[in-house]
């Protein structure tokens, strides 16, 4: 007769009470697992959208994160083409990498000369041929549909703008923007080039004339030398961005056009070399290798993961972890109270039995062990039932219900899913944790049983 067999028989002794206790634990376990699975799926979705936007790793000039926004030319990576080639041919990185690309971030003023409207813009110059790969990355198998963008098909002077920016510049009609307020027609006539200061008139004249029927905007920004520069962007489409403030300022353009705006000519520099990996699990290895590669570069460079480039990702993950911790504490309290009550009642009912076993020669530790194993067994059964129920609920109810939501950072909805297998250690941790907690919860009533006076226990009615 081993202790586990005896504990199993004793658990079945009061079947109704054992069922109620294991049911309480199972419900708590199921609830916690469902939340964890939902949080896993949400975080994976967030990571996917973050990486589609910023890549896994960015190599930037030293000081770019602190000062680059105000001086993109000064804090640009100069020999980015050489660096990209070096990364692509590196034997350690090559099998890990899906794409190496580049981007140039700029800010300035965008204007619609036709209507004499202008506003600030925040733009990104990208290698348009790489955008399809970036926006389709799904290394975490979230099955989130690729974000479609006209930028992937842009010509040298073409680009896209945010829907909010289109509205501010009065371009709703010509860009066929939905849900866009149109500017009233009565506007002051635009200033003719003849009325401009000489230097600005020269700049305006240098920009290519927009083809008739092609919507276009003028982008004005400070160059690397601090002097203003203007380029004309042919707007292919207005694409609504997820965050309203960004939507009112966004301009996406080919890298060459952005470089002409900032440096006066293409190829001069970028804000960041962006590395997209096949799998996020290779991030640490890739980052370490990249840091090694840039150590001896002519320019001092920083290697930043997406955690550092997009700190809001970690903040959201931390928020979910906090909520999950709160849920775990609640489940733990339910477990403790349920098991203490159940084992306590068992001790009361088996007082004579405890006295008998002590009389026969069982030590106090033997008595404690019997009840602790019983409690742990209740925890084990409850957690296993909870895991099974979570799988059924997740796979056959929630994931098949077709629910969806639009998370921050996206302009379109994604499915709501509960992913219990994203973190393979989650399930054994839950089972082990609840079993151990239930066992520990039994210690108090078990200790009380072991300290019973034998003569009084034998006399117990």
């Amino acid at each position, binding site marked *: *007769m081993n202790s586990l067999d005896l504990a199993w028989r004793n658990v079945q*002794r009061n079947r109704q009470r054992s069922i109620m206790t294991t049911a309480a634990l199972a419900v708590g376990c199921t609830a916690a697992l469902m939340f964890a699975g939902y949080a896993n799926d949400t975080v994976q979705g967030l990571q996917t959208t973050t990486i589609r936007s910023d890549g896994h790793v960015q190599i930037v000039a030293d000081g770019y994160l602190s000062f680059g926004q105000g001086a993109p030319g000064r804090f640009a990576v100069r020999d980015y083409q050489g660096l990209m080639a070096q990364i692509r041919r590196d034997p350690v990185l090559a099998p890990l990498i899906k794409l190496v690309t580049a981007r140039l971030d700029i800010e300035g003023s965008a204007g619609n000369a036709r209507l004499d409207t202008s506003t600030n813009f925040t733009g990104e110059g990208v290698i348009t041929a790489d955008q399809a790969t970036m926006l389709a990355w799904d290394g975490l198998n979230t099955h989130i549909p690729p974000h479609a963008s006209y930028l992937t098909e842009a010509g040298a002077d073409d680009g896209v703008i945010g829907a909010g920016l289109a509205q501010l510049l009065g371009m709703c009609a010509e860009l066929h923007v939905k849900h866009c307020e149109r500017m009233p027609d009565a506007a002051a006539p635009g200033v003719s080039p003849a009325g401009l200061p000489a230097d600005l008139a020269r700049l305006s004249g240098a920009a290519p004339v927009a083809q008739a029927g092609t919507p276009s905007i003028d982008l004005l920004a400070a160059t690397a030398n601090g002097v203003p520069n203007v380029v004309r962007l042919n707007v292919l489409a207005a694409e609504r961005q997820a965050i309203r403030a960004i939507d009112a300022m966004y301009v996406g353009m080919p890298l060459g056009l952005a470089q002409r705006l900032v440096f006066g000519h293409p190829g001069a520099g970028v804000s960041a070399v962006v590395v997209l990996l096949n799998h996020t699990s290779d991030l640490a290895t890739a980052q370490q290798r990249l840091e090694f590669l840039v150590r001896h570069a002519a320019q001092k460079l920083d290697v930043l993961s997406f955690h550092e480039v997009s700190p809001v990702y970690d903040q959201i993950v931390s928020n979910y972890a906090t909520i999950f911790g709160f849920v775990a504490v609640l489940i733990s309290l339910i477990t403790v109270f349920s098991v203490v009550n159940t084992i306590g009642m068992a001790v009361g009912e088996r007082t004579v039995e405890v006295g008998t076993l002590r009389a*026969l020669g069982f*030590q106090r530790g033997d008595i404690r062990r019997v009840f602790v194993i019983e409690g742990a067994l209740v925890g084990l059964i409850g957690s296993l039932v909870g895991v099974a129920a979570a799988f059924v609920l997740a796979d056959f109810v929630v994931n098949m219900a077709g629910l969806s939501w639009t998370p921050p950072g996206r302009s379109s909805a994604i499915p709501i899913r509960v992913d219990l297998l994203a973190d393979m250690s989650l399930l054994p941790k839950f089972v082990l944790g609840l079993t151990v907690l239930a066992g520990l919860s039994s210690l108090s009533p078990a200790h009380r049983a072991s300290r019973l006076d*034998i*003569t009084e226990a034998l006399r117990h009615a």
Partner: protein
Amino acid sequence: MSVALADVVKSYRLGSTSVVALRGVSLTVAAGAFVVVRGPSGSGKSTLLNLLGCIDAPDAGCVRLNGIDVSSLPDAQRTAFRAAHIGFVFQNFNLVPVLTALENVAYPLQLLTMDAAECRRRARAALDEVGLSGLHDRLPGALSGGQRQRVAVARALVKRPALILADEPTANLDSETGAQLIALMRGIQRATGCTFIFSSHDPKLIADADQQVLLRDGTIIDVVRRRDLFRHPSPAMRLSNELA
């Protein structure tokens, strides 16, 4: 196992009242004796057996078993002594309801670090010895009162203890079953030579004892050996017989 009590005092608290159960009791029992402890309710019979069984410790005085002062041992050592040397038969059988007859008998053998196969072999032999062959796999709920008490006797015997204590072992049995149990216990005691001390009101059990200890109000008022019982019955014993 020889038993010796010297000026043993034991009291209990019942609420705010202190009750003296034994008042300076001294007693000697030879090894291999079949001894009955008699007396009215509240005379201290159970307390005496508890002290002899190392289940409890005296407030004063000394309890020696085979010359070992067990009353001063710490709890863990007294428990180990019980596991190795003392068997118990309780009035209400006190079997573990979730264990079969075989498992109830084998369970205490685990304390003697015997392997499982040896435990089961000895348990089967003990059950056969008490006449319960074929009932090894029955749970206590499926056994009669007499059968349960036989299982309890087998459990007490299985480790071949030097001392067996039984508190009113036939109290919950009918007279015929009780007589059978008495005969069984006497036969086993003669065969094994263990010391058998029990409390009882059962006249048949009393009549078969080698030694009778008469308790009243926590003191031993008489101790009579069997050979003296018919030659010189004491006044106290006569009174006790009349009262019984």
